[in-house]
């Protein structure tokens, strides 16, 4: 028996179409915000205040000629961008968006690990796409992608465990619901472990390869980074993957620290309010990360790695230790 509602959920809301629109909207917010900070106007022409510019750019790229370099590893070159995009969207499907995940389930125990693994696999596919393009810029950029996400995945996982420890569950639904106080009230994790929130935002910045950690696509050294040899539809999907990654990263912050989609329901269906809270919280995180991006210059790869191994990793371990102590002796009292 095919459930028509489930198919609609997967395809339209809160599934594929919603995620795609949200991605394009976040892209527009980022571009507009960056432009205003830099004394520019940003997108202006397509749609009201340039709202449709990301979509226009995407369609424009789809219509462009698709060129494959002679020496490229054809299969990987063709499919890596598409698979990376698919995996990213799939990972978002596990997150509670309107109170339930896209698949309309309450999740399962340990889905946090699965989601984090998906994001790593997507990064790995980005690395593969650059490596397969047989271009020195792409090769070096790929090496940097690999070095960077291998390094930053460790603190990312460790800090993501902080909320899991507090709630006592590896299920993203339980974490998003928040911590139950002695009085029975649910509070988001950010109130209990604000330091972990700050650390997570910084690590996320590195995972998403945004300034000051955007060494893999440093255009002044590496031209287009892993995208150098890509054109047309493949390039469109690489760009889209990057944007979906940003939405995914921000959504993860929302789920882990900001109480997920849950918030006050004033009237009507809870799903509407949950989606609204989710989008608003997501935009807040996107604005924070974009603000950081505009404020800094790009670091060098060795400085990025130093920042990881000497600062973020010890900080993540300390954060975890602190959490364990708090969970045992302090939080039960509040």
């Amino acid at each position, binding site marked *: 028996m095919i459930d028509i509602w489930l198919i609609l959920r997967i395809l339209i809301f809160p599934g594929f179409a919603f995620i795609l629109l949200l991605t394009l909207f976040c892209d527009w917010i980022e571009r507009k915000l*960056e432009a205003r*900070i*830099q*004394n*520019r106007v940003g997108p202006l022409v397509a749609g009201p205040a340039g709202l449709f510019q990301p979509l226009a750019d995407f369609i424009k790229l789809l219509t462009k000629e698709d060129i494959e370099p002679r*020496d490229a590893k054809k299969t990987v070159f063709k499919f890596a961008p598409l698979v990376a995009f698919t995996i990213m969207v799939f990972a978002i499907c596990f997150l509670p968006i309107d109170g339930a995940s896209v698949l309309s389930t309450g999740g399962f125990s340990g889905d946090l690990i699965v989601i984090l693994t998906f994001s790593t696999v997507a990064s790995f596919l980005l690395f593969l796409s650059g490596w397969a393009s*047989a271009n*020195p*810029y792409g*090769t*070096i950029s790929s090496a940097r992608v690999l070095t960077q996400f291998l390094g930053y995945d460790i603190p990312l996982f460790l800090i993501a465990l902080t909320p899991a420890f507090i709630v006592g569950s590896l299920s993203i639904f339980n974490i998003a619901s928040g911590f139950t106080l002695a009085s029975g009230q649910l509070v988001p994790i950010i109130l209990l472990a604000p330091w972990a929130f700050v650390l997570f935002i910084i690590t996320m910045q590195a995972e998403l390869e945004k*300034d*000051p950690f*955007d*060494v893999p696509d*440093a*255009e*002044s*050294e590496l*031209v287009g980074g892993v995208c150098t040899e890509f054109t047309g539809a493949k390039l469109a999907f690489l760009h889209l993957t990057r944007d979906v990654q940003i939405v995914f990263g921000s959504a993860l912050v929302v789920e882990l620290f900001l109480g997920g989609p849950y918030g006050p329901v004033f009237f009507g269906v809870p799903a509407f309010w949950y989606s609204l809270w989710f989008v608003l919280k997501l935009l807040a995180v996107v604005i924070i990360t974009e603000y950081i991006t*505009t*404020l*800094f*210059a*790009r*670091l*060098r*790869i*060795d*400085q990025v790695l130093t920042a990881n191994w000497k600062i973020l990793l010890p900080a993540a371990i300390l954060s975890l230790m602190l959490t364990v102590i708090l969970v045992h002796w302090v939080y039960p009292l509040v």
Partner: protein
Amino acid sequence: MSNNNIDIVKVIQSKLGDKVQIQLGQLGTAAINVSNGLHREVLKAMLEADEKTGLTAISGVDLGTTLGVLYHVHTSNAFVTIRAEVPKDNPKIQTIVDLIPGAAFHEYEVSDLLGVIFVGNELKGHLVLSENWPEGIYPLRKDVKATEVKLSPAPEEEKAPDIGKLVKIIIGPQHPALLEPEKFAVTVDGEIVTKVEPRIGYVHRGIEKASESRTYVQDVYLVERICGICNACHAYGFVAAVEKILKTQVPERAKYLRVVTLELNRLHSHLLTLGHAGLEIGYETLFQYFWRDREPIMDLIELTSGNRVYASLMTIGGVRRDIKDVDVPKIKTTLEDLRKKIPFYRQVYENEPSIKARMRNVGRLSREDAIKLCVVGPVARGSGYDIDVRKDDPYEAYGEIPFNKIVYKEGDTWARMNVRMDEVEESINIIQYALDHMPKGPFRIDVPRNVIAGESISRNEAPRGELFYYVKSNGTANPERVKVRTPTFANIPSFLQTAIGENIADVPPNFVSLDPCFSCTDR
């Protein structure tokens, strides 16, 4: 400096007085005519007497049966031209690279364009000419006819290098970090640069040769086209050299008007570079801010000259347009607005952690190396090598205007950018002072169209460093030879040295700290 009082001419006279012929007051402090081989002795004597001796340029001139090789040498307080000649059928002369390492590029250029062979530093292939240029034809020789030049088929392009342990990254001729076409083949081991091979000449337009077939007035506008950014400096360099041959005294007001134009040039050039450096290290916000504040300066250039980019203000005998009294308050308020923003920018450059991480200790050039490699301008001043033609050899009204020579000792990219940051403020002061003390009177005088036979040099401090012009006239309406030594040409050797052993990510900020201009370099 303790050795500021050395009379370098007397030193040469006492050491080699009987072997060389000294003409005081020509081509700088003195021109020294030497027979073949003795130029090294003169240079050695100068290097011993003054540690700040460096080569400014080598000019090659076709003298009919012989080729003249002119070494323009600067010391801490003098400018000497050593004039040697080589026969055309056997154009060999001893190299000076072992004495002054920075001379290599200058010698290559003379080899390429005039066919002089520098024994010990022979040019393999070409420096500025294209790879398929025919053998044995040297474009700057007088007997070359354009019809003789038959280009052979273009050579095969380099094949994409294998991906192994050593990767060769080609920066240029088309690359987002270089806005102009020039190629640097950078070999990297992992992320560390092990070798940099330059190839210039992609935009060589033969302006030196072209100016020989145009009149002096036309040439002013031709040389102005060498560079879009420091255009006024190029026009001024040529005009000043011609005026020296004519022995023209420019009116006082014209001197001040020229200073204003040259400083506006420097202002917008420095703001451009300071912003561009931000772009190279991925700091787009900084770039946008600087370029926003550069716009009013462009408007000022339009206000004073009528043109936004090419000022076309300099002319032989003065300037072409006066600054109206009603415009002076507008210029002053615009500059004051810019001055108010400087403390903020200086704070960003000094304290912003990511800028410090990317610029501190990157591209370190010691003072000794700076002197050896004969670098100029902010690159030299960032390494504690205090040369500034405006102070050392004042021209126009610079002798009467108080301002500071900006010197930083660190010698890294950060220091070079901070030299520019401080010079922006100095430039504002200079323009304000010049506007306040502008003498009344005419702003140009008439000069004869035909220039009497003679030769002269001019030096001026362009935004990127010392710009050198050598002009030789033969009494007709066209010059016999125009030689231009641009600042970037002198600064490239320092980049080739400092990039080695550093991270590939340091190449763009290091390179942009030279403020490279390739249309200048190639001419």
